């Protein structure tokens, strides 16, 4: 929090000049600086701000005069929805593709999925987003190009946001599965006469989960904070765009508040990931 605060106040740019717009007068600027305590020494500004945060008050936006906490409350659930859907898509598609490719390494499906994985990892998300819009919205008219609404508005941005993870997860799952499938317990399971489906799903996949959960956990944090481009391309009214706008306009309380909030979320996600390890592998205990 201190670092963000200091960085912002040291950075060039002046919130008041962004408030008043292009044509202004010196008296108005001086008065607004005073109103916003921007003329106070930095430590005092920080104490004023930190005091507010401790009381659960993130302050009001300089630009819009709305409480920051309301802005976050309005936008964060939308980012969470997008990130959650992207992650769900990524896990379903990524793990399925990974498992299928591990069944027959070097086969046509494996090679095809490898090709797509390289593309998925290499293409920047805004490019993937625009291509998805071009194909599924402009050409085929199956889905709306952008905006926020029902499930049909969710598909394209979630795919775009998840594209990197689908590719990455597919590769991670494949190699984890190949490691596990060579294990003695898999031979045992097969020797017991279990069906191949059961061998894969109940025995092999379960043991391959640790690296998969790690990737998912790391990616989820990336989704929440890195959804800025996706939200911009798809006009998705989430927290990423809010932060970008706040930075562009030097809306200090808005930047401080949302960065603080996102940091807390990031820590929580990491905690949940660690707890999920224990669920995936009983050997990981957390006492």
């Amino acid at each position, binding site marked *: 929090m201190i670092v963000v605060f200091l960085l912002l106040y040291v950075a060039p*740019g002046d919130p008041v000049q962004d408030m008043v717009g292009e044509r202004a007068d010196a008296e108005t600027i001086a008065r607004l600086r005073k109103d916003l305590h921007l003329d106070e020494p930095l430590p005092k500004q920080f104490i004023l701000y930190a005091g507010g945060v401790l009381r659960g008050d993130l302050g009001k936006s300089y630009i819009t*005069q709305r409480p920051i906490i309301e802005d976050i409350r309005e936008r964060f659930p939308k980012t969470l929805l997008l990130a959650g859907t992207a992650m769900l898509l990524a896990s379903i598609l990524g793990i399925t593709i990974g498992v299928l490719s591990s069944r027959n390494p070097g086969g046509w499906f494996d090679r095809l999925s490898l090709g797509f994985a390289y593309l998925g990892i290499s293409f920047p998300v805004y490019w993937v987003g625009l291509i998805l819009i071009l194909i599924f919205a402009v050409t085929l008219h199956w889905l709306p190009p952008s905006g926020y609404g029902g499930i049909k508005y969710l598909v394209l941005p979630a795919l775009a946001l998840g594209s990197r993870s689908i590719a990455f997860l597919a590769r991670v799952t494949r190699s984890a599965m190949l490691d596990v499938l060579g294990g003695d317990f898999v031979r045992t399971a097969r020797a017991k006469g279990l069906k191949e489906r059961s061998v894969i799903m109940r025995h092999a996949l379960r043991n391959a989960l640790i690296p998969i959960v790690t990737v998912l956990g790391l990616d989820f944090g990336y989704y929440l904070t890195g959804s800025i481009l996706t939200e911009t391309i798809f006009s998705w009214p989430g927290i990423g765009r809010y932060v970008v706008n706040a930075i562009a306009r030097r809306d200090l309380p808005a930047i401080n508040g949302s960065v603080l909030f996102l940091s807390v979320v990031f820590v929580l996600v990491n905690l949940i990931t660690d707890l999920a390890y224990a669920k995936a592998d009983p050997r990981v205990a957390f006492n």
Partner: protein
Amino acid sequence: MHTRRYSFVALAVMVACTGGESSPARRSLIDSRDTYDPRSLDPALSTDVPTGRAVGYVFDGLVRFTPDAQIVPGLAREWTVSPDGLTYTFHLRTGVKFQDGRPFVAHNVTASFQRALDPATKGGRGWPLYPIAGAKDYADGKASSVSGMTTPNDSTVVIRLTEPFAIFPKLLAMPVASIVPDSVPANFGEHPIGTGPWKFVEWKHDDYLLFAKNAGYWDTPPKSDSLRARIIPEPSTAVAEFESGNVDVLYVPEGETRNWEETDDKKAMLETAPALRVFYIAINTTRGPLSDPRVRQALNYATDAAGILEGIVSGRGNLAAGVIPPSLAGSDTTRKRYPHDVAKAKQLLAAAGHPTGIDVELWSSQTPPFPRIAQTVQANLAEAGVRVKIVQRDASSMREAARSGKTDMALKDWYADYPDAEDFLYPLLHSANKGVGGNVSFYSNPKFDKLVSDARREQDEAKRVSMYRDADQMAYDDAPMIYLFFYKELYAVQPWITGFVVPSIFTGQRWTDVQITRHP
């Protein structure tokens, strides 16, 4: 196998259903032009374009702009000016109601102006009202009310100015001078109530604003029932929405201009209007060799403005030989811009004592098309021996640096707030506006100042226009900027839309005449 065949059929049906040109089933008008969330819907806070546009839908001012930037009566039926040019008497419309049913009376006018100026409102945009006597003192907290406004009766407002200012009514068409009702609640910015043609319905932040027809509007009510202003930050996405038929009008991005102009069915949808917007490079006239007018002229000669206009903004505009756009009175369209003449530039630099050229910094923001213009200028100036270092910063940092005089040259554009040559000459070049006021050339020429100040006071239109023309020429010869070009708006409008006229000024289109017409 069965399901596969089924999905294949579904796919074929879906593709077959996607007609291109038919009008949409929706009845609501949809705009795509806002790229970021408005600051607020409170007129007193209208310092940005999306805010100003939305405020113009919900509210009225005493006067307003037409799409071609003419000024017409709004809540004032008519007005008279005293012979000394100091007193304006506005005769108001009677029987006008706010959208919550309360009547509009003269007192609302003075209260609205006072509120916009009130330091407690923290709007930051009092200047359009500063010509009113006592307004500046009130805004600075030195007076308890604005002395220059009186309301002799419910339908008359008398406004006294500190000095004659013939174009004052134009400033009253700006969003900040909109009329609001009494006892405005704290959340007015989220729930605005005005007398305008559209009622506010809902605002989903960063998503859209929705307005409904105000059936009881005192002027002709809108022809459509609702208007949705979508907020689409990415221009390519706006294009995709337009091509999908989901929005009715589109700013055609500069980079797509050629594509649209050269495709027949797209070309048919294009509409254009001259924008009151100039692109220029402010030369800080107080820094080193740049204080010599010969050096500044040399920079103008060395810059291939025509090449930039053609190559970077696809020819969307006219070369600038002065700061007054060609659609405004006072512009001298016979004046030719400094030709691209490298030899002449070198000669001027040598004459100024810099035979080996000079080193300068050119600041630019990261927003397209500025970085590409900066690079081209850098290459142009290099030919004349001017070594340019480009400093690229985000818009906010750059603005602060330019205003505090830390930039040698700053690549900028300027949009008019009201359609008058004064809105270019005065903020950009008058010494009273050095720095934060807009004059980041720090240009100071007493003769120019006097001419512009006198023009502001001049009541005779013809005389005033000729003074503007002279002032523009005077500054042009001093070259406090590298003159680039005046921009031209290029919109695409769906074939099913009637009544949409591309506005020259951003508050000039209120969608009242626009509707979706169905072709059988």
